[in-house]
């Protein structure tokens, strides 16, 4: 019996809780070819260099026939691919436009103005811990905050938020290569259609009655289809990943009581600590949807034109050739140029928002809550190997500070 290809093992749910030994195995061959002609790249310098290589495309229609075309919407949806699945010049045009109401130089205060509301949400969630001796960090804490944040960013009415949960879940899992099953993809397509119909309505409303949020600001400058595709992307990418980042930080700190103790006394540790979690347990583990536009020589291997390329961010983040003692969680790490938010022109659009949410959530969580330990370690994980994170994180708590 031949062993499964390593990508299959990574996707195998049995390895979800701890994929890192597989990544270590993978790094022994920095560029590995699988039998189907897919290339996995796992070492830091090679991943970094390819992510910045103009010969690598995010538009999967450049793949040779027969390979999965992640991110290409079914024709009947009538929607264009969202900007993460496009290349320049289309990508740059979309991203520049979308950035205008979102960040500097045009809107330097937009995100900053959300801080107060995020803090209020965090306080409310933590207040609800009162009197409990155990909570699920995912359901009770990590999950609600990013929904609020992304709804505020888009300008989605609060009362519609519950409907987003289901759609976001279904769409996020469609990014998972293990979801090749027809059911899964169908479910994702259906979710996207429903969400699309909802957003199309909302966008039309915003066009007539502009309100807060970027959808209103963008409505005059984008086609409804582009705007809808963008909204779906921001919702999915801004939601699931941040939930996982907050949960991963909590899990990692509870697994490192010495760091936790320090953090309680040194609140200024928050910045390097959160960056180290993004290296150590990145919420996006790998990018399975790039394609070589030309033959690319990398680390002694030629990736032929048209090949699917997977960039293994979580493996690169633990490459000993770049990070000293990489399997050690070390908030004192200097020069921590991790790939947790990717690199190059597709660098995480929402990174500043994600960092704001993490900094609103994590310090306050550990300031107010006295933890007595993890109730399940490892916790149960979601199916998704790309947007990897715990489905639940049950913890025992022993009191709450005001």
């Amino acid at each position, binding site marked *: 019996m031949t062993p499964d290809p390593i990508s299959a093992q990574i996707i195998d749910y049995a390895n979800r809780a701890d994929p890192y030994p597989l990544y270590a195995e993978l790094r022994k061959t920095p560029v590995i070819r699988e039998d189907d002609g897919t290339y996995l790249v796992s070492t830091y310098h090679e991943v970094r*260099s390819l992510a*910045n*290589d*103009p*010969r*690598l*495309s995010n538009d999967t229609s450049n793949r040779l026939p027969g390979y999965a075309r992640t991110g290409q919407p079914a024709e009947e949806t009538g929607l264009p691919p969202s900007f993460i699945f496009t*290349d*320049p*010049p289309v990508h*740059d045009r979309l991203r520049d436009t979308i950035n205008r109401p979102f960040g500097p130089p045009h809107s330097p205060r937009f995100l900053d103005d959300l801080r107060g509301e995020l803090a209020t949400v965090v306080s409310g969630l933590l207040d609800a811990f009162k009197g409990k001796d155990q909570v699920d960090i995912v359901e009770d804490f990590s999950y609600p905050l990013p929904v609020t944040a992304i709804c505020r960013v888009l300008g989605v009415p609060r009362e519609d938020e519950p409907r987003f949960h289901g759609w976001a879940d279904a769409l996020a899992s469609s990014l998972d290569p293990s979801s090749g099953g027809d059911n899964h993809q169908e479910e994702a397509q259906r979710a996207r259609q429903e969400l699309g119909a909802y957003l199309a309505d909302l966008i039309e409303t915003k066009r007539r009655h502009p309100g807060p949020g970027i959808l209103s600001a963008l409505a005059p400058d984008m086609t409804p289809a582009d705007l809808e595709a963008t909204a779906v992307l921001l919702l999915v990418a801004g939601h699931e990943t941040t939930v996982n980042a907050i949960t991963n930080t909590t899990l990692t700190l509870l697994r490192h009581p010495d760091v936790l103790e320090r953090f309680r006394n040194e609140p200024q540790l928050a910045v390097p600590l959160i960056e180290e979690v993004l290296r150590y347990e990145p919420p996006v583990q790998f990018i399975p949807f790039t394609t070589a*536009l*030309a*033959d690319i020589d990398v680390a002694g291997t030629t990736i032929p*034109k048209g090949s699917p390329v997977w960039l293994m961010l979580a493996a690169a983040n633990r490459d000993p050739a770049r990070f000293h003692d990489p399997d050690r969680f070390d908030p004192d790490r200097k020069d921590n140029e991790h790939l947790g938010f990717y690199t*190059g*022109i597709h660098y995480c659009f929402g990174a500043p928002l994600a960092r704001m949410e993490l900094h609103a959530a994590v310090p306050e969580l550990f300031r107010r809550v006295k933890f007595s330990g993890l109730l399940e370690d490892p916790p149960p994980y979601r199916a998704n190997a790309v947007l990897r994170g715990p489905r639940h994180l049950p913890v025992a708590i022993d009191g709450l500070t005001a």
Partner: protein
Amino acid sequence: MSADTDVEVLRRQGRIVVVGASLAGLRAAETLREQGFTGSLTMIGDEPYEPYDRPPLSKQALLGRARPEDTALPRRRDIDAEWRLGVAAEELDRDAKRVILANGDSVPYDRLLITTGTRARPWFHPEEAALEGVFVLRTRDDSARLTRKLAGGVSRVLVIGAGFTGSEVASACRELGLDVTVAERGPAPLVGALGGVIGAVADRLQRKHGVDLRCGISVTALEGDDVGRLKRAHLSDGSAIDVEVAVVSLGAMRNTEWLVGSGLAAGPRGIACDAGCRVFDVNGIVTDDIYAAGDVARSPHPLFDYQFLALEHWGNAVEQSKIAAHNMICAGPERRPHLWLPMFWSTQFGVNIKSVGVPSLGDQLGVAQGALAEERFVAVYGYRGRCIAAVSFDGAKWLGFYEEQIASGAPFPLEYRTVDRRTEMLQPVDPAFPDPHLPTHGATVTLTGHSPTERRVEFVPAHA
């Protein structure tokens, strides 16, 4: 063994003097301390200020987004130095190993680092240069004066010279809503640094933003009124324009005059040093106790045929000063070469311009990504069939890739497919650099030939 002992003694109790207290000098001092130098450190600077950052002075400062006095460079560590600020070095006495200051003080050294940089080339006519309303832009004081003047409201600004500084000033003025005329002797803005093909893009950008751009024109005279205020500029085409402000942006001059008579290979093109930053004397013999770094230094680079490069780039000042500092307190085998790939950036008219390599060496140019017409592109320069430089307009994120291509001597033209590859510019063209013998003021890289010294050493062969 004795050399090693010397180095040890130097590291513990040597006297290191840094002449030039700006970016390169500061980073060198920090590196010295970081690497365990515990002797005495003296920082000499002719300006009264502790080291400050210059790039914002022609950008954010003019727009009022940062005050010129708030541009002090962040410190990476305490350097425990004696600061001699506001007093220029006037002479170097190599025999006695001391630096003589303008106030007559003399400062002895065991190792000397020269980071005296450059200054703005002044208007050629001293009386006209002294008119109220005539500015140069290099220092914090220059920037504060110009900012004050612009904020007071002026009818029209004349920018003389459309190199990077001049173009940035013109851009800031337009953003402030001021009328601007730019007079450039060459055929287009930025032509000395990037060539005429890219210069044409810069030309379009300026005009699109409402600059009254006049190329192929020089300013022949600046005319003042009765009380010594600038009122008019006369141009080489016979015309004249009424202006209250003229910003003279004719490039930089290297601060080497104080070294005349020192016997070092120092002149208008800079101070010649080896790849390890050790300065040459006029005979082309390398010294072992005098180092140079930053804008004032020129050193050979293997990627560019070992030609001597003088680089007026922020990043070069940082990298070269670190190498110089390291080498100053190391024995021979531990010394490192300065092999930094030239790189600089500019922001003007809403566009981020970035360059890697040495464009002015290019004999061909091809647009690798994007399109010149969209003012968003990466252009690659070839030199004898290999990649020698790349310039991006709003595409800086790609330059890391081209940097690797340049460093590995990748063939030119580029024949592979990339994202955003258009077909119309695939055929390489002449990048259209002006004749290097004509004076330009846009280049921030100067190729200064293979000889380590400017001055000719007399050599009289013996008669047969």
